[in-house]
């Protein structure tokens, strides 16, 4: 059980190793996120996608590992960098891609775009364009689960930047006071937009902030889905038993800077290279092979299947109709 002090744990040194089945599904999720994001970046660079794109490339292990701990009816809140979270919670790639392409068949009928892709029926309470905006909402969903006695749990994703928002501190304190069933998963990708962590907060491990609220916090390697799973899974189980919130900090890195096209001059080249060398996907592939969970051949078959799924998602998006201008007036009220 993590205490108030941050500690870093290594894979296999703790219980809660996921079953082979779960490990395989985590792999497929990571490959899906990776391929979807690569393709989205290509389409964006080719100017097929309007707006802008916050890429999840490099952070796949966090969403895949954390969402693997959840029931289908559990909730998450996502962020502006949210494609990974919602794929991990089970969204269809075709309707996601259609949304990115601003089509009427998209999850939000073209009203939301990259930062708002969601499906409430999958327990995703919005991806959010306001940094820290989802944190009080997640906390309210946890209150709702408690009041309705459903044993549902909420995983609230946010970043190191959002850990400095008042909304985080207000909501986390409230969750502590009421012992709400929520896990705050902070994806520390080391930068709030372009501002490096050492320039935006005095602490290194964000999990220490849990101490201020009176619940447990832990910092883990966010580029290893097993480690993420090992930290989030007991936190989810505690939440489900009514034992209150936990803060799990996952240390990771956003490969492409804040948005696609961000030159990222504020990041030393060596730092980017070092994090790319810690690429969560091949690393997890080595783990799966070494532990006899999946063979290279099985992994290649997953990659092939995912590649096809992403391509057909792109086709679906491209073939889908645009919304009509007047659709802008729908969906505000009944």
């Amino acid at each position: 059980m993590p205490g108030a002090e941050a500690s870093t744990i290594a894979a296999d040194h703790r219980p809660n190793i996921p079953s082979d089945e779960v490990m395989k599904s985590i792999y497929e999720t990571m490959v899906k996120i990776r391929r979807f994001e690569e393709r989205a970046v290509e389409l964006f660079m080719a100017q097929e996608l309007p707006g802008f794109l916050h890429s999840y490339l490099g952070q796949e292990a966090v969403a895949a590992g954390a969402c693997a701990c959840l029931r289908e009816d559990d909730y998450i809140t996502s962020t502006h960098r949210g494609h990974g979270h919602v794929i991990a919670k089970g969204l269809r790639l075709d309707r996601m891609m259609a949304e990115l392409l601003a089509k009427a068949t998209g999850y939000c009928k073209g009203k939301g775009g990259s930062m708002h892709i969601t499906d409430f029926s999958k327990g995703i309470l919005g991806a959010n364009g306001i940094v820290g905006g989802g944190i009080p909402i997640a906390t309210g969903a946890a209150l709702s689960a408690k009041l309705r006695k459903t044993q549902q749990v909420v995983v609230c994703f946010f970043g190191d930047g959002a850990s400095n928002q008042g909304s985080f501190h207000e909501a986390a304190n409230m969750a502590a006071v009421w012992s709400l069933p929520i896990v705050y998963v902070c994806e520390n990708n080391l930068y709030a937009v372009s501002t490096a962590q050492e320039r935006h907060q005095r602490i290194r491990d964000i999990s220490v902030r849990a101490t201020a609220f009176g619940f447990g916090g832990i910092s883990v390697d966010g580029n290893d889905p097993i480690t993420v799973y090992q930290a989030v899974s007991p936190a989810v189980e505690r939440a489900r038993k009514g034992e209150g919130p936990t803060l799990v900090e996952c240390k990771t890195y956003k490969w492409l800077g804040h948005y696609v096209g961000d030159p990222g001059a504020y990041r030393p080249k060596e730092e980017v290279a070092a994090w790319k060398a810690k690429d969560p996907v091949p690393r997890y592939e080595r783990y799966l092979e070494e532990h006899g969970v999946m063979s290279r051949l099985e992994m290649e078959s997953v990659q092939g299947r995912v590649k096809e799924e992403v391509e057909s998602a792109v086709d679906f998006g491209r073939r889908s109709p645009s919304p009509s201008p007047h659709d802008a007036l729908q969906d505000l009220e009944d």
Partner: protein
Amino acid sequence: MRQILYKEAVAEALGEEMLRDDRVFLIGLDIGRFGGTYKATQGLWERFGEERVRDTPLSEAAIAGAAVGAAMTGLRPVAEIMYIDFITIAMDQIANQAAKLRYMSGGQARIPVVFRTQEGAGRSSAAQHAQSLEAWLAHIPGLKVVLPSTPYDVKGLLKTAIRDDAPVVFIEHKLLYNTRGEVPEEEYLIPFGKARVCREGNGVTVVAVSRMVLKALDAAEQLEKDGISVEVIDPRTVVPLDIDTIVESVKKTGRLIITHEGYTRCGVGAEIAAQVVEKGLYFLEKPIKRVCGLNVPIPFAPVMENFVIPDSAALVRAVKEIL
């Protein structure tokens, strides 16, 4: 008919809806054991318990956001923001989240949340406890904005607000809580978007918001003695706005005064005036007049506070000016 206080009517509406629908719960600072700063939730904690009448930490953003999250997941929260001045701290959750989540998701979510708050000057509360900020909220598509001026209206409109599937900002007035009025024992609802003609007349139309309704009625009574007939209209909800009732009245009187405590500049009076011009310019025989809060922060000293907030004498003067 029995008469009860405005604050008692609020508590009655909340209690009845909580009894009718166990998805309804209250969340806010000091609303439980303490009974609310203005005692509008008095007795509910004792009746419904601390789970459903939920005292919170002093955290407006979290109060509002938790209500949004609960509303998205099957409950019908009524969140109290103690003073509308404090809504500034909760504004992201109200204006960016509650108001937009349904639209941004292509119509997927319903956010049946009520944000109860109170506004208004007159107690020397100074600039951060006495504003009337309904125009801020009315500006945001996706929010309904309600400003009841009587015990009857506050009860019927609050029950409607709680049953509405969209976010509602429900703005009471701190100096109305202890006003008394007729409220029937039997249940009733008041629909949104239906103005109340509080007093009929054919000389001048006065559209009054929140507590200004009382001052407008007082002014109308004084003017009647001079043989001047004033029609007083309370829009009751500024979003949706019942512009037709206002235009119909202007058709009859040819003269329009709009009065509210909120700042004149970009206040809801500006919107009402614009709509009247768009729909009924040629009915107007005189320019529209706004008798509203002056464009300064609310000062503390009673002499200054009374100067920046319109009173019935100001309305009497305004009526005489456009006769």
